[in-house]
């Protein structure tokens, strides 16, 4: 398959707000269940081990007109909860049996409560993760939280999630992370061969496809992309930071690259690379997932940074590893985590002479000209003065 064919399929999956592929997966066996999850991170291994399909819910994007959802939110709250409610109320999620709301911010936290009130027949879980990282404190808490999630899914599905099943699922997701990292590394090394819109669509496909299929799509893309001849542009390399929850419209990603930037790393779907190393397959699989979260997980604005000297180091190391020449802080309007953290990250970039710009967006932003101008000026300034 060519990259064009692969990406065309990914685009179709991205555009499909009826989640047809996930519906078809479920319809193939009446015992099957689908569990939706919102950003930033849930342990999909557990959902998979239950024989269920994890379905990433990232709002309705710029193709969805929000009518009902707006009635639930004031103007000064971001768009992702509105479009997610819109998905719920317009029955686009009527096949979803459970929803997980990770502890990312107060809006998503409260959305979990709204979902409980609005869709009382759906299994809903607010998925809290520890902000204290010692194994015997945060780890023990988190292991118990994971076991409660397991118990909830077992009851929902009428299944037992064995340790063996969990190890197998962990192995498959280790492979998924390895392939995703390979795509990201490939893009960082040869950005002209892996345009960011394509990488983005590949990642979005992983939100709806069974992980086994996604692994195949990733492998196919890597094999095809390396062979494809594409023009190399005189773009500067930048890292995108702050877009880990409400997603930017595709045109925004396209606009940044058209303006003269190669995006060599981003935090769009952090769940994909949240765990930094392979999760061990020996021993207690739940304890392994806990240890992986506590000691080898990505940094994000939704997480507490327990040492002042570590603030911004993850971003800085990403800049260095990818050879990036600058950072674009792109946060959704009203995003507490990204906007509160940004000044600290900016200070860290200043300390290390990493240039940056910042702007806000919404998932349905339509005006790209200001983005292109800002990104273009930024790219020019890097080329001229860095």
């Amino acid at each position, binding site marked *: 398959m060519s990259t064009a064919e692969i990406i065309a399929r990914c685009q179709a999956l991205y555009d499909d707000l009826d989640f047809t592929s996930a519906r078809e997966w479920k319809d193939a066996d009446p015992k099957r269940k689908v569990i939706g999850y919102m950003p930033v991170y849930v342990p999909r291994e557990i959902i998979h081990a239950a024989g269920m399909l994890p379905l990433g819910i990232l709002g309705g994007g710029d193709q969805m007109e929000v009518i009902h959802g707006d009635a639930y939110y004031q103007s000064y709250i971001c768009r992702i909860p509105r479009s997610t409610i819109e998905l719920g109320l317009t029955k686009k999620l009527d096949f979803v049996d459970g929803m997980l709301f990770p502890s990312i911010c107060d809006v998503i*936290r409260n959305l979990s*409560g709204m979902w409980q009130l609005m869709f009382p027949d759906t299994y809903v879980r607010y998925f809290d993760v520890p902000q*204290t990282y010692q194994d015997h404190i945060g780890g023990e808490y988190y292991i118990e939280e994971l076991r409660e999630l397991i118990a909830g899914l077992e009851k929902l599905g009428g299944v037992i999630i064995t340790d063996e099943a969990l190890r197998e699922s962990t192995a498959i997701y280790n492979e998924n992370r390895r392939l995703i990292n390979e795509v990201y590394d490939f893009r960082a090394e040869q950005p002209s061969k892996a345009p960011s819109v394509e990488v983005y669509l590949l990642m979005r496909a992983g939100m709806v496809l069974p992980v086994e299929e996604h692994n195949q799509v990733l492998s196919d893309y890597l094999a095809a992309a390396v062979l494809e001849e594409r023009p190399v542009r005189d773009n500067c390399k930048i890292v995108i930071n702050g877009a880990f929850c409400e997603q930017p419209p595709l045109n925004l990603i396209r606009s940044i690259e058209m303006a003269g930037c190669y995006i060599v790393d981003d935090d769009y779907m952090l769940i994909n690379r949240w765990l930094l190393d392979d999760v061990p397959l020996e021993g207690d699989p739940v304890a392994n997932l806990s240890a992986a979260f506590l000691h080898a997980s990505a940094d994000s604005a939704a997480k507490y940074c327990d040492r002042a000297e570590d603030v911004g180091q993850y971003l800085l190391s990403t800049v260095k590893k990818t050879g990036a020449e600058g950072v674009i802080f792109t946060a959704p*309007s*009203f995003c507490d985590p990204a906007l509160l953290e940004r000044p600290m990250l900016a*200070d860290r970039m200043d300390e290390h002479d990493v240039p940056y710009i910042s702007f806000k967006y919404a998932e349905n932003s339509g005006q790209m000209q200001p983005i292109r101008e800002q990104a273009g000026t930024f790219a020019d300034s890097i080329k001229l003065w860095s």
Partner: protein
Amino acid sequence: MNATAQTEVIKDSSMLLQKTMIAENYDALTSVQETGKKVSATFVPGNLNELVMCFDMLNNLPEINAINNGMRKKSGMMVMQAEKMGHSEDVCTYVKADIGSMSRGNLAPNGKPMPPPDLLLLSYTGCFTFMKWFELLRHEYGCETAMLHVPYEGDGVVTKNMRDYVVKQIKENLIPTLEKVSGVKFDIDRLRENLRNSARAEDDFVWVLESAKNKPSPIDAYFGGVYYIGPIFTAFRGTEKAVDYYKALRKEIEQRIAEGKGPITPEGDMQDERYRLVVEGPPNWTNFREFWKMFYEDGAVVVASTYTKVGGVYDLGFRHDPDNPIETLADYCLGCYTNRNLSQRVDMLEKYVNEYQADGLLINSIKSCNSFSAGQLLMMQEVEKRTGKPGAFIETDLVDPRYFSAANVKNRLESYFQMIEQKRHGARSAA
């Protein structure tokens, strides 16, 4: 007994007393260079004042500082200063007032500079912003920071796992850190004694809150209520002073009930109680008096509010328990209002509307506070559905005066009061 202040604002003795208490705490904080006392900064939800006192440390609450600056009309400049420094216009204005204040000398109401904290006690209770607020302050001060993660009651229950987690953090992280910073060894009996005081004050505090079930209500449980929560939510819970304060406050309110009086307002006792409201959400601080006047001048009294539960929920039975000192601190944190899920909050509002015989629910939605605000429109719908009483929705902000539009707010309130009248009229006609 009323006391007329020089500014012609009428206040009850209790209001003056709490003002004196808060001022004394600021005096103590701004004197640490002389006294050598150590300072812990923490948040109102999850304020472990009884524990902090065990280490002879002073308690500084940045939210209270922001409120003070808001009420003294200084926060607007501070917020704008923080925005100039790169903090987003979209984030919490308490944070920006705090950071802006730091850049302008960080002056206390007594005009003296606030001390840098020796410890940031990051009680991560009921609000995501707290986490990043103290990371920002740590970034500025470079001081010791202790995280206490209080899990959110996502399912509306406190599990053993959640409680054990909080207890372990207090025992194994917080207490050793407090010992290290203060140089004082932890004495659990001191904590027990403080908790005993807390429970005594809480009994009288709840009595005062529930006095609003009377008709007329002798208190305003929102505008007046913010004075009443001062000692118990800040540096005084656990002290004899707080016990005495709530005793005195209770006596004052008992007298009001005996005399059939309505609540005190800045212009004297409210005479004609026409509307009884439950209010959800924090008040606006920059235009506090103006906002309050819009209520009492139309005879509207707030009989119950949720903001008076933000620093602890005591009117559902919880009391600090000296027999289980660490566990009770965990229970207190887990039960703070904004740490409860939406269903629990709706249940509370429904209970208040019914038990306090309210005419309706008013939501004051705060532009920069997602913890309170996200989901309030659904909450209003639910409470209306369950109680049959009308809801109203207004939007202001905490301490950014740019987001208080007096005309808009007054317009909506007047329409709401008219709606209540019409419903009453309709009900009378139907009968």
